[in-house]
């Protein structure tokens, strides 16, 4: 199966150039340039309606772009109908043919391309997804997880240059989803095909993908490796959509070498120049962000023990919940009303209960700076979204 890789080094690159989709006056996807390198596991991450599925369907040929081109390797496939593109899709809720058994579902693509002896290939493929026993069953006789694997097998057997996955795990329960994430990752490593995976689940995107593109309102907000996106978000949307972030609105006090000094609520906070994506003029505003797990919590009585050189702010514990591996605190602080702090469950300080005065402190290296002219709550998942 790896032979395809060797023939053309970039044979499986997906290249989108200025691709746009408009429905009447509504723009689902704004002009978008994107390159997915051969053999990578690429995720398009975003809330529902952000344009990620539309983008995927334009690669598959199921949706005609209003403008722009789609290239697979060197081939411009923009004008090709889906049945002429060397691309296959794992559909949301699988779209298995209900009138065909599992074997015929998997053999469908081969047969349409005129291949007569499909038996060996189909059996091998069913082995790969561990469904050899189920070949003669109808789709509705299988469990959700099994159906999902049939959908993957049905697409992969065609050795597509790119496999598109549209929320492939959305219909599965949490435990099965975890299992299938690892399974898909294993299959991808085994076959070496480019996977483009659409999901609204940030954990799923981060565990599986090499590269994640975070989409919002028809645009790619940021693109990078999962760790890069998490550690260096460049917009509040990315900072909030991937995990949780605390923000402090601060004023630039001075810039000295590689450090920016910020003023907030009377105190001074340090921000490394390299981790700031906002314009930093003296007197200007910057949103200072820090992840909850980077912060240490010290009771106000022990404030003297905190080492020098750490960013610090004071506050009062408003709420705490014990999770097991950690305790999550909500801190009421003059610079930010609901500061979230996750403290690892190593040594618990019994004084850290609601009402206690505390000092929050963290390594300035863990601070990031964002343009203050944005909605602080962009990308915060609401309750409805989590249910869906």
């Amino acid at each position, binding site marked *: 199966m790896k032979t395809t890789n060797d023939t053309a080094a970039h044979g499986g690159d997906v290249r989108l150039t200025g691709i746009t989709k408009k429905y009447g006056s509504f723009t689902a996807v704004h002009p978008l340039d994107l390159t997915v390198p051969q053999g990578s596991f690429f995720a398009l991450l975003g809330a529902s309606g952000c344009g990620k599925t539309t983008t995927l369907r334009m690669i*598959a*040929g*199921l949706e005609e772009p209003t403008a722009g081109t789609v290239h697979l390797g060197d081939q411009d496939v923009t004008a090709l*109908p*889906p*049945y*002429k593109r060397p*691309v*296959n*899709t794992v*559909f*949301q*809720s699988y*779209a*298995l*043919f*209900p*009138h065909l058994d599992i074997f015929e579902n998997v053999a*469908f*693509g081969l047969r*349409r*391309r005129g291949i007569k002896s499909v038996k060996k290939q189909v059996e091998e493929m069913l082995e790969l997804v561990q469904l050899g026993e189920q070949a*003669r*069953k*109808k789709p509705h*006789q299988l469990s959700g997880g099994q159906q999902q694997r049939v959908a993957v097998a*049905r*697409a992969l057997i*065609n050795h597509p240059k790119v496999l598109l996955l549209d929320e492939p795990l959305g219909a599965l329960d949490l435990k099965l989803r975890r299992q299938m994430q690892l399974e898909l990752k294993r299959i991808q490593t085994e076959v070496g095909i480019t996977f483009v995976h659409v999901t609204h689940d940030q954990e799923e995107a981060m565990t599986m993908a090499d590269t994640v593109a975070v989409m919002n309102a028809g645009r790619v907000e940021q693109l990078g490796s999962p760790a890069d996106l998490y550690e260096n978000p460049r917009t509040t949307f990315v900072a909030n959509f991937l995990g949780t972030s605390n923000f402090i609105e601060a004023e630039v006090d001075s810039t000295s070498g590689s450090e920016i000094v910020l003023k907030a609520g009377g105190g001074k906070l340090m921000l490394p120049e390299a981790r700031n994506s906002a314009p930093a003029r003296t007197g200007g505003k910057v949103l200072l962000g820090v992840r909850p797990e980077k912060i240490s919590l010290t009771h106000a009585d022990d404030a003297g023990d905190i080492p020098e050189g750490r960013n610090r702010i004071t506050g009062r514990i408003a709420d705490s919940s014990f999770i097991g591996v950690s305790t999550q605190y909500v801190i009421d602080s003059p610079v930010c009303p609901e500061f979230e702090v996750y403290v690892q469950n190593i040594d618990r300080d019994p004084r850290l209960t609601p009402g206690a005065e505390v000092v929050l402190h963290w390594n300035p290296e863990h601070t990031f700076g964002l343009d203050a002219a944005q909605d602080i709550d962009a990308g915060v998942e609401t309750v409805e979204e989590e249910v869906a």
Partner: protein
Amino acid sequence: MAFVNWLKRHFVVIAGLLTLAYLLLPNVVVTVFSFNNPKGRFNYEWQEFSTDAWRDPCGVSGLCGSLSLSLQIALWAMLGATVLGTMIAFALVRYRFRARGAVNSLIFLPMAMPEVVMAASLLTLFLNMGAQLGFWTILIAHIMFCLSFVVVAVKARVMSMDPRLEQAAQDLYAGPFQTFLRVTLPIAAPGIAAGALLAFALSFDDFIITNFNAGSTVTFPMFVWGSAQRGTPVQINVIGTAMFVVAVLLVLVSMAVGNRRKRQRT
């Protein structure tokens, strides 16, 4: 008191079964009287047991001819209405187009109109055109009133079909024609079959519209109607009974086959 309680608890079952009896009573009578040997021309009073009619079902002149004519018309009407109706159903579900509302009412109206009105207006048209009443006018009329029922049956099925199935077929290298042949048609098939069966039954059993537009051609229902005026041969009951029995047997056999297949699968 216990009896009253029992009655209360099983009221639905008792009432339902009584209705079922009401529905089936005429068929019982038809069957019993197919073994009658009536004295006069009419077969309404029980005389004595006889199997004469069963041994010679075509013994009455014109009866079997009308039956075969009705079967022919029903087959052609089924074919015509199914093809035209399926096309309309697909257009309605799959495409957006102008005048959708008008199209919907044109399909709904024939079902919401008493047969006698349709029959009379169609006859007016045929008379004005100077058309020769007979096989063709009957067939035209039957396709017309069966069409809407096919549309409804097929539409329901196509609407419940996941559009992603066709997209999946396209994604798996099936062109438009292959997609239709391998995916759309097999999945829509039960709806189309239901529509076709309905069309066949409606056409075969139609009397009012046929009566207006048949001229001197005699279909099976018209033969029965005519004999109700002149004298009812026992053979009518024989044919009625035979069709009932054949239909029930066909359904039972197909159900048994379906069940066995299901059991083999699991």
